[in-house]
């Protein structure tokens, strides 16, 4: 599904350049539930942005569902994002002057779905996430958890292959965080690859594979047996994911 080969990325910061990713090799299968961890500046958000085609990389290769993602026109990458990827952000990134339903329906606007149809589909997704009554509310009238659920509905509506979530629980309290994680887990069980970036161990422990980044390189990948140990360590009194 996702195949990264020796990805490098640096940012120009005035005169000096900041080398963020120093050769990432990564393979993620369809249906994986992956978390990317690491301290600040380890390059985890950059990696996620490259995965989501929101940012480009300097060298290496990135194959998404068999397509090489490199030097694509803005139009083509926008189209691919629309088809393949759903985004969930820490700060929700809902459009403030649109209500919940319109926010959810927006990706379908860019797919050319007629207004009535896309609003109807948006209502279905809101209902699925338990927000049917909030459909006509504006983002500033909703709680953080509700906003994140709207954002998840928006990410799902275009039936993506991958959900990319950048600190999806970063702005939420722990109860709401677990709620959001459960939703993501359900989505994953429907066969969608979910990749989240987090620095919270308990959140990471709810995924089935943890990729630890350190200083622009993959430090370790925790799965199976080691994961059980990790979960025991970080999930206090909660049901293991």
């Amino acid at each position, binding site marked *: 599904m996702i195949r990264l080969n020796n990805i490098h990325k640096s940012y120009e910061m005035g005169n000096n350049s900041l080398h963020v990713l120093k050769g990432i090799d990564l393979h993620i299968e369809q249906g994986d539930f992956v978390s990317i961890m690491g301290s600040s500046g380890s390059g985890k958000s950059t990696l996620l942005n490259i995965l989501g085609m*929101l*940012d480009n990389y300097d060298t290496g290769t990135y194959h998404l569902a068999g397509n090489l993602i490199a030097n694509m026109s*803005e139009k083509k990458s926008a189209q691919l*994002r629309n088809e393949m990827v759903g985004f969930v952000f820490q700060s929700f990134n809902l459009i403030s*002057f649109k209500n919940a339903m319109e926010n959810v329906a*927006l990706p379908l606007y*860019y797919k050319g779905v007629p*207004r009535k149809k896309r609003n109807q589909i948006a209502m279905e997704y809101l209902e699925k996430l338990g927000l049917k009554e909030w459909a006509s509310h504006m983002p500033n009238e909703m709680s953080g958890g509700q906003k994140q659920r709207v954002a998840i509905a928006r990410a799902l509506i275009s039936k993506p292959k991958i959900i990319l979530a950048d600190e999806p629980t970063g702005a939420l309290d722990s109860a709401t965080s677990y709620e959001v994680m459960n939703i993501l887990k359900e989505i994953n069980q429907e066969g969608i690859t979910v990749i989240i970036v987090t620095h919270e161990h308990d959140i990471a422990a709810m995924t089935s594979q943890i990729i630890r980044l350190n200083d622009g390189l993959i430090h370790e990948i925790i799965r199976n047996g080691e994961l059980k140990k990790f979960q025991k360590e970080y999930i206090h009194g909660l049901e293991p994911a």
Partner: protein
Amino acid sequence: MFDIDKWQEILATIKKNKMRTFLTGFSVAWGIFMLMILLGSGNGLSNGVASNFMNDAVNAMWIWTGETTIPYQGMKAGRSIQFHNEDQDLVRKVAGIGVSSGRYFMGNTRYSYGKESGEYTTITCQPELIQVENIILKEGRFINEIDIVEKRKVIVLGTDIKTALFKDTTAIGEYVNINKVPFKVVGISAEPGSTRNRNAYMPVSTAQMIFGGNNRLHNLAVTINATTLEESKAIEEQVRNVLARKHKFDPKDEGALGLFNKLEAYIQTMKIFQAIKIFIWIIGIGTLIAGIVGVSNIMLIVVKERTKEIGIRKAIGASPSSVIGLILLESIMITTIAGYIGLVLGTGLMELINYFMVQSAAAAAAAGAAVSDQGGNNTMFLNPTVDITIAIYSTLLLIVAGAIAGYIPAKRAASIRPIAALRDE
């Protein structure tokens, strides 16, 4: 391509961002409104003055005689010069002279009909005077060529004389006594742009015969065929030279021969108005530039404010062109509607002013006719409206300026990576 979904998206955005929409619209509407008022006032002023000139033919020229003030060919100054009928023939032959009418001045003339009588001005003339002085004929006919040749005793009365002598009864065909000589009334006249119509017109040949004029004339009224100041000056010069040779006076002698050239005054006044028009245009263009700057500023802020939204839209699959299209169409729609509102308000206000001025002018004319005979209806402001094509082009200019001002930052915002746009708080 007309995409109803796109317009719905734009309408929804406008509806949710009323302040922004108002500010963009206001700067456009205000610019157009001010431009309309400026240009309208300028046009009104120039129309008003032009209409005052139209009371006589703009190319009219009056020539009269006096006493010489410069000694010439051994003759002393102070000699009086007198026109005769042959002088008119001489002037007529000068190139560039159009129609002409000789006039013989009569002293006080007393008009009477039945028990009514009064003293009025009698203007003796030839048929061509109607063209020189733009006399309006209300009833009957003006003096004609046969009147001149046969020296008929006919008269054209001004409306005031007719009202004074005949009240409401018919005057045409009746005989009035002028200095006790009966004349047949053939027409009723009015003067353009004047509230007093106390002049009567009589064939010059009849006047010369009956009132002892022989073949003397006092004044020549002519039209000249010239379009520029130089041409008109040249004709003036030739008339002077021809008459100076005939009557033996210095052609430069302003006392011997008086001359008023209306065209000269008209051309000079129009030159002043040209300058005023240029001035108004400079201010108008300044107003437009202020409008353009206003729209551009707001569009820059709008795009800046929407950078994050652009990032979100791109993250969920909007192509750069669709983002630019959205912002541009919104800007064009707002500026077009606002421009139209400014246009309607501006022209509406000028039309309203025009309406009240026409009303008050009519009232003043009525009052003037009833109460006093002093002064004419000299309005300085008339029909203060703007050429609609100018109005439309100015609006289009603002729309295009707004679109360009929105396009540049929108293009930049749409071409940056969505992640950078999303970070923009």
